[in-house]
């Protein structure tokens, strides 16, 4: 543990966040010729330690003999202040070494509201924010995670981005770094060589020009080495790729205190609002034998008592029955419980529920996303009201009387009727409980309706659509509130202003970097936390920078406009997304990949695909 911290840890909340020393910590000795990699997660320990991507990448890097990969999480502001007061630069958990002394720093960014935390961490580490201000002595800073699919708002702060799946990419990058560093190459030479690796993007090698109206005019490489299009990298064979069986077991409580078993990557449903469903294509699965063995080792090495099967759509995993059977052969004995993430209503059945849901769990979650059939067709959710009610009835039979439902508002073509339909559907579920033969005497049902605001994301058919204005979002939230009559229904809704900020950065370009730098200067951080989010502060910042939020969040974009992320090839083609967008406006559905291939284009990336031709 970092001795320097010892004194100030008594002044902060949850000091366990900053000490390291957990079981399974990968503490490597420093050695000659090593490549040191500081893996940074721009949120607090409890959030970052629940992130599967980070576990996989830190593990994959540490598998390399010459790499020493250590973890760093964003300190909560009380700790940040202590570090500043004592003049201690932010460092990693394992060795306490300041971030500025590492060869490479990687930031995993899963959602746009973490951008200010990335800059907060750089500031605490005394590292210049802008890539152009960093000389060859400073670490190479690389960004990854889902936000890398539109890295442009952060492009000015990073040397490189890893777009796509990083298990192999980062290892190749580390090897290249060692080779070139040992040969005395400069940072620029390294960057030009690095872009030859699949999925690596170097913002400095491209020039962006804008039209007078602020839209993009051109995005061109300024050297020969930079490819015109950057193709995302994928793991071709999930069974053969690295998966960590020796993870760090935190002392303090984190969001996910369990083994996370990645079952498949990608999704074959094609819901039109969902970025993950598009960018992780093509759909690939792991085999039950590999998964079972991994699960056994993970439990043995961690001591957890729960396994969560991770997937974008677990019910679509072809060998779910086989996998659960294999797991249950030993998990019951070892008192290990299994859990599945929210399942699709149309593939939720009794046997599944009995097998994997522990008796203690009294609740179940479904995500219909929209209240009316018309709206569900627009978003291509492809579930009927009947299947929703049937799934709930199955849940009642299993004595689950707490139903949680996820919905969105602000969807394209949405009308007030569609909003009220959410209330009607929830009421129908409450009514069906009271009419159900499985209703438990003396036990009441509780339905929680959780509604978030649509944030149109890059690489989805909705990327050209505007987000509703804040006033509209709030009006609809009130409309729904007033339409819910039953006391059995609890209604939660997501802050429209937070969603607005997310939407600005989701479809942002490089012009936003000055707003981010100014925000950092003003001490803005932890935007996704109630305690720190201030919309009025952001309005001031955008005003000062001459940036119109509506330009990014609230504008209908024409299909032929050049988008900041168009230079990335995710497999799925723009033509496919355009065709899906047009179908959405006509309330037409597209079948899932298993039923019929719709030619999205992801299959050209290759790999062991489960249902692509």
């Amino acid at each position, binding site marked *: 543990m970092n001795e320097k911290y010892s004194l100030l840890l008594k002044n902060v909340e949850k000091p366990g966040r900053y000490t390291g020393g957990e*079981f399974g910590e990968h503490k490597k000795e420093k050695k000659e010729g090593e490549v040191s990699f500081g893996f940074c997660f721009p949120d607090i320990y409890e959030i970052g330690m629940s992130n599967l991507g980070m576990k996989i990448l830190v593990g994959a890097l540490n598998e390399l003999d010459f790499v020493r990969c250590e973890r760093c999480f964003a300190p909560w502001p009380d700790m940040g202040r202590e570090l500043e007061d004592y003049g201690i630069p932010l460092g990693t958990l394992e060795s306490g070494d300041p971030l500025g002394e590492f060869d490479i720093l990687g930031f995993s960014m899963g959602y746009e509201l973490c951008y200010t935390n990335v800059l907060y961490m750089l500031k605490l580490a005394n590292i210049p924010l802008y890539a152009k201000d960093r000389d060859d002595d400073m670490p190479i800073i690389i960004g990854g995670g889902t936000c890398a699919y539109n890295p442009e708002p952060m492009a000015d702060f990073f040397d490189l981005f890893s777009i796509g799946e990083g298990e192999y990419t980062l290892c190749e990058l580390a090897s290249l770094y060692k080779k070139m560093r040992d040969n005395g190459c400069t940072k620029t030479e390294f960057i030009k060589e690095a872009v030859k690796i699949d999925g690596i993007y170097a913002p400095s090698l491209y020039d962006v020009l804008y039209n007078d109206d602020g839209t993009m005019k051109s995005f061109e490489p300024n050297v020969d080495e930079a490819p015109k299009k950057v193709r995302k990298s994928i793991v071709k064979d999930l069974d053969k790729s690295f998966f960590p069986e020796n993870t760090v077991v935190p002392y303090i409580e984190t969001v996910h205190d369990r083994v996370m078993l990645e079952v498949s990557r990608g999704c074959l449903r094609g819901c039109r609002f969902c970025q993950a469903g598009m960018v992780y294509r093509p759909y690939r699965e792991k085999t039950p034998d590999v998964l079972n063995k991994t699960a056994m080792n993970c439990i043995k090495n961690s001591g957890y008592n729960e396994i969560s099967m991770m997937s974008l759509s677990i019910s679509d995993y072809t060998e779910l029955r086989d996998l659960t059977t294999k797991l249950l052969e030993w998990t019951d004995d070892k008192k290990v419980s299994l859990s599945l993430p929210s399942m699709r209503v149309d593939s939720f059945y009794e046997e599944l529920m009995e097998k994997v849901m522990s008796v203690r769990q009294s609740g179940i979650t479904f995500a219909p996303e929209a209240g009316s059939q018309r709206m569900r067709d627009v978003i291509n959710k492809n579930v009927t009201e009947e299947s929703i009610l049937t799934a709930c009835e199955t849940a009642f039979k299993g004595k689950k009387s707490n139903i949680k439902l996820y919905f969105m508002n602000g969807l394209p073509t949405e009308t007030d009727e569609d909003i009220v339909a959410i209330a009607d559907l929830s009421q129908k579920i409450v009514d069906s409980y009271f009419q159900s033969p499985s209703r438990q005497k003396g036990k009441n049902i509780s339905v929680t309706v959780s509604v978030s605001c649509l944030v149109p994301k890059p690489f989805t058919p909705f990327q050209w659509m505007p987000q509703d204005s804040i006033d509209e979002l709030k009006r609809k939230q009130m409309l729904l509130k007033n339409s819910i009559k039953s006391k059995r229904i609890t209604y939660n809704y997501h802050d429209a202003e937070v969603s607005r900020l997310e939407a600005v950065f989701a479809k942002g370009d490089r012009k936003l970097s000055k707003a981010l730098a100014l925000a950092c200067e003003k001490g803005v951080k932890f935007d996704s936390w109630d305690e720190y989010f201030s919309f009025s502060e952001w309005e001031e910042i955008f005003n000062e920078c001459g940036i119109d939020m509506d330009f990014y969040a609230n504008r209908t974009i024409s299909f032929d406009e050049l988008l900041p992320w168009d230079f990335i090839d995710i497999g799925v083609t723009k033509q496919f997304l355009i065709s899906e967008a047009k179908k959405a406006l006509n309330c037409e559905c597209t079948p899932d990949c298993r039923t019929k291939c719709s030619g999205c284009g992801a299959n050209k990336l290759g790999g062991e695909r489960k249902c692509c031709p």
Partner: protein
Amino acid sequence: MLSVRVFFEKKNGAKFISHLDLNRAVMRILVRTGLPVVYSQGFNPHIKVVFALPLSIYQESVCEVFDFKLNEDIPKEIVSESLSKAMPDDLRFISCEEPIYKLGDVAKAEYEIKVYTKATKSEVEKIFDGDVTVLRKTKTREFEDKINDRIFSLEVFDDSSISIKLKCILRASNSEYLNPQYLVNHISKHYDVYDCEIKRTKLLTEAEELFV
């Protein structure tokens, strides 16, 4: 062994975790050993682990203890080795034995306390001469408590120009526990105290024999 008593250290990073965190950590340690440990019955079976005494956060210890039971008689060497491998450095495994005393027999504990203060050895000795009263706060009230009857021995040593050391034996049982922090609080009533490091060094019975 069927009944196991584990002796371990709690130090460095592990100083900063709560007793609840420690409880959870030990359960996971026991699962990692792969030993046939005894679980509780009922809806939510969990490993039956009992600790001798909790330890406050920020305090270190070289004499922590927890008991658990095995379903089968496993040789001590195997139990030791499994535990040693499953416990992280900051919760370092010392040894394991068949319990001799009952957990309830823990009555006192010895501590070494380093206090960062400019007060001298004799100045500190003086303030512990006679009645020692500290402010105690409970959920319902605050009151002045004379703690002399729970201090069984106390020695003060010179340490450095900015610190002194205390070695003491205090009341420490599940029904009555004098937190060594109160001794530091008492000093800070009279002299500036900048920081302190509290280490529990021994668990003792009423007769001040080593708890084993």
